[in-house]
C-alpha cells in the first residue's frame, strides 16, 4: 500500500496537534502543512508577550526548530483558495494542486473589523491576531510621537494587547473602549470584572465602557455619546470570526465548521479542528465556538489520530481560560449557570457555579492554586455527592475525594 497523503491547512495549534496525532499511528505517511504565514509554527497567544518583551521570537516557537524534520513533514507557504472535494485536492493561490487522502482544515479565526464610518482615514491602525500584527504595532510604537493608543474592545485580545503596549512603552496613554458594560465580558461576571478593571486602571489604562465608536475622522474617534478621542495608534480588537469559507458548500457550517467527537466534518475524509470549528460544550450542552489553544490542540491531535485510522474521541470540550494582567491571574472554565458558591476578598475572588449535582463553571481571580481540580470536576461531570463538595469549595484539593478515589489517583497509573 502506498503512503497515505495527509494535507493540513493551518500551522498553529490544531495543525501541529494533528501532526503529532498522525505520527502516533502512522510514521510513514506523507504530511504536508500549508500555511499562509511563511513562518515556523509559533504560539499565537504569545504575540502580546512578544510586544511586551516578555518573550522572544525564538522562545515563542510553539515547537522546536527540528519539528518538521523530526516529524517528516513538509511545510508549504501558500494560501488555499479552494478545496476540490471530488478530485480530493486543495488548490493554492499559486495554482498548485495538492492531492490528499485525508484533509484537515485548521484555518483558525481572523479579526472581525466592523465597517466603521471613516475607518479608511485612520493612520496606524492594527488588528492583533498574528506575529506580523505584533511586529508592526511594535514598530509604530517605537516612533516617540505615537503615544496615545486607542483600543476598541475590552476582551481577551484587547486587554492582553493593552498590557503588552504598556510593558513595551510605559509612557503610552492607553484608552480602551467597549460596548459591553464590563471588561472581559466573555469570561467574567460583574464583580470579577470590576476587580480586574480596577487592577488594570491602577496601571494607568483608561476604560470607557458601555460605549461604542460611532465614526472615525482621521485619528479622532467619535463615540456614540459624542465624546471625541484623539489617538496616534488604533487597535481593533472587537472580536474574531472563524475561517470557514473553504468548506462552504462542502460540509455543514453553523457558526463554525461542525465536527463530531472524532473531529470529522460532514464531508468524507475531511476533518477540522480549532478556532474554525464549533463543538459541544459539555458544561452547558450547547454547541459553540470555543476558540482557545488547549481545545485546538486536543481536537487537532484527535483529528490526526483518526485520519491515520487510529481511534480517538474528544468528548469533553469546555470553555476554559488562564490569563493574567500585570501580575493578577485569572482562571475560568465552564458555564456560569446554577447556584453559586462565592468568596470575594481582597485579591481572592472565587465563584463556583453548580446545579443538578454537577459543577458547571468557576471564576478564580488572584488565588488560582489547584484550579485544575475544579476544571476536572466540570470535564469529568463528577457527581458532587461523590466528593466532599463543601470542602472542595473552600479549598481545591484531592482531600475532597474518597480514600479509594485518592488511592487510584495517587497510587495507580492513570
Amino acid at each position: 500500500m502506498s503512503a497515505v497523503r495527509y494535507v493540513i491547512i493551518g500551522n498553529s495549534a490544531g495543525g501541529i496537534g494533528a501532526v503529532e496525532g498522525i505520527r502516533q499511528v502512522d510514521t510513514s505517511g506523507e504530511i504536508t502543512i500549508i500555511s499562509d504565514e511563511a513562518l515556523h509554527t509559533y504560539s499565537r497567544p504569545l504575540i502580546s508577550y512578544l510586544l511586551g518583551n516578555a518573550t522572544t521570537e525564538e522562545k515563542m516557537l510553539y515547537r522546536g526548530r527540528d519539528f518538521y524534520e523530526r516529524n517528516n513533514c513538509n511545510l508549504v507557504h501558500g494560501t488555499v483558495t479552494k478545496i476540490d472535494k471530488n478530485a480530493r485536492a486543495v488548490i493554492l493561490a499559486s495554482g498548485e494542486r495538492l492531492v490528499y487522502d485525508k484533509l484537515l482544515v485548521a484555518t483558525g479565526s481572523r479579526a472581525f473589523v466592523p465597517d466603521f464610518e471613516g475607518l479608511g482615514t485612520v493612520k496606524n491602525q492594527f488588528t492583533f491576531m498574528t506575529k506580523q500584527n505584533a511586529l508592526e504595532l511594535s514598530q509604530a510604537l517605537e516612533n516617540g510621537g505615537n503615544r496615545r493608543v486607542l483600543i476598541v474592545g475590552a476582551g481577551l485580545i484587547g486587554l492582553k494587547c493593552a498590557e503588552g503596549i504598556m510593558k513595551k512603552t510605559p509612557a503610552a496613554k492607553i484608552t480602551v473602549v467597549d460596548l459591553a458594560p464590563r471588561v472581559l465580558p466573555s469570561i467574567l461576571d460583574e464583580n470579577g470584572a470590576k476587580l480586574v478593571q480596577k487592577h488594570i486602571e491602577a496601571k494607568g489604562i483608561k476604560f470607557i465602557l458601555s460605549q461604542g465608536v460611532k465614526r472615525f475622522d482621521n485619528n479622532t474617534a467619535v463615540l456614540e455619546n459624542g465624546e471625541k478621542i484623539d489617538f496616534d495608534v488604533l487597535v481593533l480588537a472587537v472580536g474574531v470570526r472563524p475561517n470557514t469559507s473553504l468548506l462552504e458548500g462542502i460540509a455543514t457550517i453553523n457558526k463554525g465548521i461542525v465536527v463530531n467527537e472524532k473531529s470529522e466534518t460532514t464531508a468524507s475524509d475531511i476533518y477540522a479542528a480549532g478556532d474554525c470549528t464549533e463543538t459541544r460544550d459539555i458544561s452547558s450542552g450547547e454547541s459553540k465556538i470555543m476558540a482557545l489553544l488547549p481545545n485546538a490542540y486536543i481536537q487537532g491531535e484527535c483529528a490526526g489520530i483518526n485520519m491515520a485510522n487510529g481511534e480517538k474521541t474528544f468528548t469533553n470540550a469546555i470553555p476554559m481560560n488562564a490569563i493574567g494582567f500585570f501580575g493578577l491571574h485569572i482562571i475560568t472554565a465552564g458555564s456560569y449557570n446554577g447556584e453559586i458558591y462565592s468568596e470575594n476578598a481582597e485579591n481572592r475572588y472565587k465563584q463556583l457555579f453548580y446545579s443538578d449535582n454537577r459543577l458547571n463553571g468557576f471564576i478564580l481571580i488572584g488565588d488560582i492554586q489547584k484550579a485544575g481540580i475544579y476544571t476536572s470536576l466540570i470535564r469529568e461531570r463528577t457527581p458532587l455527592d461523590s466528593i466532599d463538595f463543601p470542602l472542595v469549595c473552600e479549598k481545591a484539593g484531592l482531600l475532597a475525594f474518597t480514600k479509594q478515589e485518592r488511592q487510584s489517583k495517587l497510587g495507580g497509573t492513570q
Partner: protein
Amino acid sequence: MRRVFVNEKWCLGCHLCEYYCAFAGTGEKDMARALKDIKIHPRINVEEKDGICFAVSCRHCKEPLCVKACITGALQKSDGVITIDSEKCVNCYTCILCCPYGAISPSDGGAVMKCELCVSTGTPACVAGCPNNAIVYEERA
C-alpha cells in the same frame, strides 16, 4: 518506567518531602542553611486535614492535559517524564487550569513549578528523604 507513588496510610504529615524537594537543585550542602528564612516552593505538596495526609506531585500522565494545553510548548513529555522549559514558560497558568491533581504551582516570578522526577540524580529527593516509605519510586503496571 518508574514513577512516584503515594502510600497514604504511611504518610506522617511531616512535610519533609517538601523540604527535600525544595532543597534539591539548590546546589547547597546543608538543607537547614539553604532553606532558612525563605518561603519554599516545593514541587510536591502535602494535603492534610483531620488526621488524613498525603503528598501530591505530578503523575506524569499518559495523556497529559498540561502538555496538550501548554500555549508555549514549554511543557513536553519525553521518555515518560513531563518536563518544563523554564525559558519558554510565560506564567500564563494554563497548566494550572488543566492539571486534575493540582500538581503544578506558581513560583515567585519564575516559571511554574512541577516535579520532574529528579531525573539528573536518579532517585527523586522526596522519595529518598521520606522517613516512612509513604512516597515510593517504582514500576507499577
